[in-house]
């Protein structure tokens, strides 16, 4: 199992919010003077430490990230979530943590976050539909939360569940999917330091359309594994059901690791289009495990990835 990353930075190293906000205002003023629009919103709130797991690739703009979403709970169109997600109430929010854990219970969101070191994780996101983005998430390692609630030795998997609230999530009124959305990870995948629960992006609290208030991010798997608006985390002994896998098992596997050599039955996964690169951008070759192979390939040693797709 991969080691848990312990940053050598302390909270005292973090630039005080007032200082960097005023710095940001200066930059914004300069940008405005030069006629440049800032991609990120000016009023940021969440403080997070930088992370060694971050990529230095060019980040997608806040607009790209918040106006192009697959979140079928708010409609199947890419722009539906941005249009419909404002109806979602994210406060109060509680997460049930149950199953094979020492301290099961219903945890208020603040309690879930308590004591977890917040980091900015700039990750590539590769959708199963062969497009990708780079997103500066704010979050903490899922392993931190799991350690806190105490994983029992018999637990082998982690199951996740999205909120079911059709009166606010208009897409759930369609019977297209057997709501609520569910996902799952093997325990070692869940404990990997790359796997985070994110509560924000671009320094902002998580926008509703991106899975507010708390979502999973597993950067080496196709985006649909990174379940949004989580209300339940269960430790289980058996492989839990996953929504897309149940819906179309021939197309979406339990593992769903990004793999350019294993095609989706209906399209190639060899290349991808990076969102935000414009009308004439070149397709990019898709990387094994979305470029995180050196950190995660060991989790699947000896497994036939064409069979366990």
């Amino acid at each position, binding site marked *: 199992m991969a080691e848990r990353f312990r940053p050598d930075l302390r909270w005292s190293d973090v630039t005080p919010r007032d200082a960097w906000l005023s710095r940001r205002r200066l930059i914004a003023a300069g940008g405005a003077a030069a006629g440049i629009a800032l991609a990120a919103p000016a009023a940021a709130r969440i403080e997070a430490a930088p992370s060694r797991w971050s990529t230095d690739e060019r980040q997608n703009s806040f607009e790209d990230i918040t106006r*192009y979403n697959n979140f079928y709970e708010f409609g199947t169109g890419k722009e539906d979530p941005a249009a419909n997600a404002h109806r979602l109430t994210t406060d109060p929010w509680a997460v049930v943590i149950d199953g094979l854990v020492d301290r099961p219970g219903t945890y208020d969101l603040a309690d879930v976050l308590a004591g977890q070191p917040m980091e900015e994780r700039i990750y590539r996101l590769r959708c199963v539909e062969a497009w990708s983005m780079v997103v500066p998430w704010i979050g903490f390692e899922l392993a931190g939360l799991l350690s806190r609630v105490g994983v029992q030795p018999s637990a082998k998997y982690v199951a996740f569940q999205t909120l079911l609230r059709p009166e606010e999530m208009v897409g759930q009124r*369609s019977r297209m999917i057997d709501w609520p959305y569910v996902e799952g990870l093997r325990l070692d995948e869940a404990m990997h330091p790359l796997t985070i629960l994110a509560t924000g992006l671009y320094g902002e609290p998580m926008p509703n359309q991106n899975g507010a208030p708390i979502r999973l991010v597993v950067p080496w798997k196709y985006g649909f594994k990174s379940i949004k608006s989580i209300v339940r985390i269960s430790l289980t002994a058996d492989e839990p059901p996953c929504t897309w896998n149940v819906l179309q098992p021939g197309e979406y596997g339990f593992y769903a690791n990004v793999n350019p050599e294993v095609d989706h039955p209906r*399209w190639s996964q060899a290349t991808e289009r990076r969102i935000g690169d*414009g009308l004439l951008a070149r397709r990019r070759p898709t990387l094994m495990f979305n470029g995180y192979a050196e950190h995660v390939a060991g989790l699947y040693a000896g497994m036939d990835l064409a069979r366990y797709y």
Partner: protein
Amino acid sequence: MVQAINAALRRLPVPAVYLLAAVPGAWLVALAFTGGLGVDPVKRLERELGLLALQFLILGLAVTPLRRLAGISLLRFRRALGLSAFGYVLLHVAVWLALDMQFLWSQIATDLVRRPYITIGMAALALLVPLALTSTDRALRRMGAAAWARMHRLVYPATVTGGLHFVMVVKAWPLEPFLYLAAILALLALRLRRRPALARG
């Protein structure tokens, strides 16, 4: 009412229909060059052009039932509707080849063989090509009306195939592609009922 509509339609010159049909396409191109197609302009353009192609194919299929059931004659415009549909099909395929797949021929070739929705989409295109090529008055005269009409029934399988292509390209089973497919099948079913009459006449 029907007479008034037909009278108004008779005053509409056919070239105007071509122009009107080109408006949504021109609008899309304008949006593409001004950043108006959102975060993923390539996919949006591809999708909208495909939808326009289907919409014009459906309009073309509606001509005969409209005349028979409502007495409204759009017959003069049927060629314009069909060729507009074909134009949008070509643009849709061109955007896929050039902007989406960027002429990655090996991947395109694999997709053509291994992705049923692409295979079936290409089949629809292949069915439409001879219809576009024989859309002139001269071709109609040379072939003779009966043979020409028989061949142009290829538009039925072409449109069904196009509708299936849309159903197959989306994830899960959202409603919209099925509405298109239902419209296509309904318009074809209206013809089935008239088959005996056709045979007699």
